[in-house]
């Protein structure tokens, strides 16, 4: 299975701190994405990184990809209470559909 596994399962930080979440997967991928889910809502696409990329930025988000270790990390800088949500990585390979990991529940305390 190419399923991504996020780590940690849950993370609690103070507002203003940085939050780092990791994702590991098992097989070769074409790209890896991070999604965010607020409680009881649909997933929202955050950022996509392709297998030939090592780092990508979007606002306060920074994603890295290490294909040799089959892992990715999502860094949220200067976190806000509104960043409280679950964060999922999703991997895909050519001809296969996206597989989501179990997610990391992030709580940002004011």
């Amino acid at each position, binding site marked *: 299975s190419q399923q991504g596994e996020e780590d940690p399962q849950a993370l609690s930080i103070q507002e203003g701190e940085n939050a780092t979440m990791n994702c590991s997967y098992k097989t070769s991928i*074409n*790209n890896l*994405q991070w*999604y965010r889910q607020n409680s*009881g*809502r*649909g*997933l*929202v*696409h955050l950022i*996509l990184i392709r297998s030939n990329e090592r780092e990508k930025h979007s606002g306060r988000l920074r994603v890295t990809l290490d294909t040799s270790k089959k892992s990715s990390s999502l860094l949220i800088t200067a976190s806000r209470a509104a960043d409280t949500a679950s964060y*999922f990585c*999703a991997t*895909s390979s050519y001809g*296969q*559909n*996206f*597989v*989501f*990991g*179990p*997610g990391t529940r992030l709580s940002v305390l004011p």
Partner: protein
Amino acid sequence: EPEVTQTPSHQVTQMGQEVILRCVPISNHLYFYWYRQILGQKVEFLVSFYNNEISEKSEIFDDQFSVERPDGSNFTLKIRSTKLEDSAMYFCASSSQGEAEKLFFGSGTQLSVL
């Protein structure tokens, strides 16, 4: 901003009953998906649909499940005879031809099978 809409937001049904979950994908999107999420657990792939046919399905998507695009706008998931373990949040998603990897999700239908 265009969005994927799902109806109903909540559906309660008796075990053995048929349910139809409805989705209106973003209008110019060509790829359609159903995922489900049991409370607090991972998001599981059910089925993908392109060019009026199923392109891939998971082990969860057995003979009790079917999908249809009855017209140019709706995309439905039917569960023929619901089981207790079908209780979950069902998400519809779509993506465009030009950016097929980026999925746009609806807010989901919470299905409760009693």
